[in-house]
């Protein structure tokens, strides 16, 4: 065979090299073929591989590379054209695929890389979340501890229990070695160890409050770590060699009620703090964590609130106890006072009798002595004795009265009495004295003053007598005028301190006594009503005056819910004494207090109606005649009329009584009013008596309202009429009980 130029004959040394190339190619091919197999195997195993297409591509690339190298095996020796073609095809394909793969990888590798970064990112995130979870869990636990602690603390209102529980719970929750509470002393200058966890009875260690560390703790509302060497932290027996645990202190505000403003939480400027010191166990290498510190702060606040509640409770309990004590004391005092009054009253009652008896004896016997035969000297002596005894008797009475008035044990009587007659009687009593002194007395009673009133007649008379007596006493000449009328509400306002309450059942009687005597200096007027004070300026001071009279009058007047006062323009200008008292108005129910008992015993009753002029008004002829006959039988001079007009025409002041029939059509009530208008003088006008067959209250009320003086029921017997007339003339009022 001819050797062509295309193939170089091979050197024998090249045989070895060729052999090695042959073997390497073979192994390369194997490797190249096995890799895709491996890839396929693992891809099949993994379910989630997203880049299958790439793998296929890659596999193809590798297979083709392998094929190329394999086919290369045949090219070391002589090979045919087919082999060459196959080789070329293989190489071409390989080239294509590898380029395609390379291009593909350009896309894919960034993706793959980003996957990696995302994975890293997610891992970081997961770690972070884990951390946060841990934090939340710790917080939640802290919260739980706080709640539990708070619950324990707030479940009691006892200060000691609160504090003890706080320490115990804190100790437990935080696994503390020691926990202590320092409270400010009363002076506020020191902190005293009040409660500890481990030591049972803390003996009063004190620490001055102005330690810099303490100030630091007090000025912040956080838990502040402090040095274990600080005096407040030196609590436990010295552990010895090892490191004492970390200490933290927190302030506990001691709140008072006044700290809680309505809109703000207690201000930061509260002065009073207690100090809570917490120590971790020594040798534990534990440290205070954030959440633990927070726990401590929250607890401190809760304790503050709980303490303030406890304080409030204590306050109120104390106040209540104090009140109870005061009550007991007051009760005792009251009982003592009552006993004292009772003793005094008993004393007075006894003395009353004891004093008056000899007094009366003296007066009586002196009077008797006066009647006997005496020399002029003896008479003078006896008169003096009598005068002094009278004076003494009056004084005793006044003093006894006044002492009863003072302690309020005097009670006014309430009875219906004739008001007009009170004035008349006083006048009668004073007349002799006044006429001796040549003083003229003048009494004026207003027309609208009720004839009857409810009150204490005796005391009213006493008052009036006293006032009028004073007027007479202190006047040497001139006149005394007494006016009495019903006080109008307008006049009340002029009087200071007098605020009467008008009502339908009461009226205010106003009496004014004017005299033209010596008068009183206006400066002396306030003294008039004080006991035992006598005016010094009066030259004619009557030695018989004891100075008690006006004081007693004032007391009586005040008891009658009134006022008394004296006005005077000065010495020599006379003075006016005025008093107002409240009296009741008698009504129907009170009228029954004047029962009409027909006096059947004719002998005792004045049957002297001879010539008594009476008027009978009745429109029934028969009744008229009968009544007329009745009255004539009793001796009256009777005029009869049968109508209101006739009555008004005929009636005169000569008629003492008018008997009016009111159950007929004639308006007897109207007639009564007209008669009252005609004759205004209450004392002189005829008495009007209604005769009726009706036995009802309405009639009686009507009669009383129009001011009739009486009411009697028909039929009237002779005896009854006799009694009626005498009663009427005596009392001027008569309302038969129905």
């Amino acid at each position: 065979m001819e050797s062509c130029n295309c193939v170089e004959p091979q050197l024998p040394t090249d045989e070895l090299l060729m052999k090695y190339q042959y073997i390497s190619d073979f192994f390369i091919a194997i490797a190249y073929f096995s890799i895709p197999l491996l890839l396929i195997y693992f891809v099949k195993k993994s379910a989630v591989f997203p880049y299958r297409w790439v793998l296929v591509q890659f596999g193809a690339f590798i297979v083709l590379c392998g094929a190329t190298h394999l086919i290369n095996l045949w090219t070391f020796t002589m090979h045919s054209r087919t082999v060459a073609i196959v080789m070329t095809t293989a190489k071409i394909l390989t080239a294509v695929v590898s380029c395609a793969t390379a291009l593909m990888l350009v896309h894919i590798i960034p993706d793959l890389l980003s996957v990696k970064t995302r994975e890293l990112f997610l891992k970081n995130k997961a770690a972070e979340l884990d951390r946060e979870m841990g934090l939340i869990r710790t917080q939640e636990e802290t919260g739980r501890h706080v709640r539990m602690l708070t619950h324990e603390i707030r479940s009691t209102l006892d200060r000691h229990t609160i504090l003890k529980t706080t320490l115990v719970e804190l100790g437990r929750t935080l696994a503390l070695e020691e926990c202590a509470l320092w409270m400010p002393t009363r002076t506020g200058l020191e902190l005293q160890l009040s409660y500890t966890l481990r030591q049972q009875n803390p003996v009063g260690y004190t620490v001055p409050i102005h330690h810099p560390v303490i100030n630091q703790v007090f000025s912040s509302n956080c838990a502040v770590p402090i040095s274990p060497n600080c005096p407040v932290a030196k609590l436990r027996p010295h552990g010895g060699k090892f490191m004492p645990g970390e200490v933290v202190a927190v302030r506990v505000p001691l709140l008072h009620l006044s700290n809680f403003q309505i809109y703000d939480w207690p201000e930061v400027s509260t002065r009073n703090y207690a100090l809570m010191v917490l120590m971790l166990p020594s040798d534990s290498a534990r440290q205070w964590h954030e959440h633990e510190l927070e726990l401590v702060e929250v607890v401190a606040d809760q304790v503050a609130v709980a303490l303030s509640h406890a304080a409030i409770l204590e306050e109120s309990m104390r106040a209540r106890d104090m009140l109870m004590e005061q009550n007991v004391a007051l009760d005792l005092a009251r009982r003592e006072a009552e006993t004292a009054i009772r003793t005094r009253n008993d004393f007075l009652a006894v003395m009353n009798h004891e004093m008056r008896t000899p007094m009366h004896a003296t007066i009586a016997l002196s009077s008797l002595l006066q009647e006997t035969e005496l020399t002029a000297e003896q008479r003078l002596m006896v008169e003096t004795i009598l005068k002094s005894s009278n004076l003494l008797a009056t004084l005793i009475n006044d003093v006894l009265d006044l002492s009863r008035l003072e302690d309020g044990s005097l009670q006014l009587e309430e009875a219906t009495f004739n008001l007009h007659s009170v004035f008349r009687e006083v006048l009668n009593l004073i007349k002799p004295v006044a006429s001796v002194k040549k003083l003229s007395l003048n009494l004026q009673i207003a027309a609208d003053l009720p004839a009857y009133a409810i009150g204490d007649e005796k005391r009213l008379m006493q008052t009036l007598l006293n006032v009028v007596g004073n007027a007479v006493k202190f006047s040497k000449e001139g006149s005394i005028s007494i006016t009495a009328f019903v006080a109008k509400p307008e006049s009340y306002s002029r009087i200071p301190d007098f605020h009467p309450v008008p009502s339908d059942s009461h009226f205010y009687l106003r009496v004014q006594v004017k005299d033209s005597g010596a008068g009183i200096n206006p400066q002396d007027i306030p003294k008039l009503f004080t006991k035992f004070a006598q005016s010094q300026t009066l030259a004619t001071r009557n030695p018989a005056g004891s100075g008690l009279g006006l004081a007693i009058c004032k007391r009586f007047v005040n008891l009658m819910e009134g006022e008394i006062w004296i006005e005077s323009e000065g010495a020599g200008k006379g003075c006016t004494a005025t008093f107002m008292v409240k009296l009741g108005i008698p009504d129907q129910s009170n009228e029954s207090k004047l029962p009409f008992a027909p006096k059947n015993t004719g002998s005792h009753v004045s049957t002297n109606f001879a010539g008594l002029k009476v008027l009978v008004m009745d429109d029934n002829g028969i009744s008229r005649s009968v009544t007329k006959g009745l009255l004539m039988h009793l001796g009256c001079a009777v005029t009869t009329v049968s109508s209101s007009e006739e009555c008004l025409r005929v009636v005169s002041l000569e008629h003492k009584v008018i008997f009016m029939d009111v159950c007929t059509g004639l308006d007897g009530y109207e007639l009564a009013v007209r008669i009252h208008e005609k004759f205004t003088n209450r004392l002189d006008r005829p008495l009007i008596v209604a005769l009726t067959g009706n036995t009802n209250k309405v009639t009686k009320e009507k009669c009383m309202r129009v001011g009739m003086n009486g009411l009697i029921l028909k039929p009237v017997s002779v005896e009854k009429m006799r009694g009626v007339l005498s009663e009427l003339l005596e009392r001027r009022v008569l309302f038969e009980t129905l």
Partner: protein
Amino acid sequence: MDVIQWQKQLLDHQAVMLREGFLDDQFIQLQKLQDDSSPDFVIEVMTMFFEDSENLLNNMKRALEQEPVDFRQVDAHVHQFKGSSASVGAGRIKNVCATFRDLCEAQKLEGCVTCLQQLQHEYSLLKSNLQPLFRLRQQIQAAGGSIPIMD
């Protein structure tokens, strides 16, 4: 003596009338009013009463016969009659008048008419019963005796 007999008769008759209710205590009172100054007081009053009563009864009758009946008018008359009868002590008449008044107020015509008849009846009874009484009194007085007074 006749006077004593008459007096006794008078008392008996009066007692009967009182018991029957024709007269009541007021009549006794009326008798007490008779004295020397008015010797015929009782007779005078009773005569006046009879006249008045007859008038009133007539008025009542006429008032009830009117159409329409004015009950107030009737009531007024009855009221008068009641008053007078009470004054003289005519007990039964007074009671009937009271009933009559109620009927007038209730405006019951039937009842009123019946009452009126009753009144007339009572009145005539009273009058006829009083006649012998007055006769006896006159006889006693004429004989110079004194009228016995019941109490």
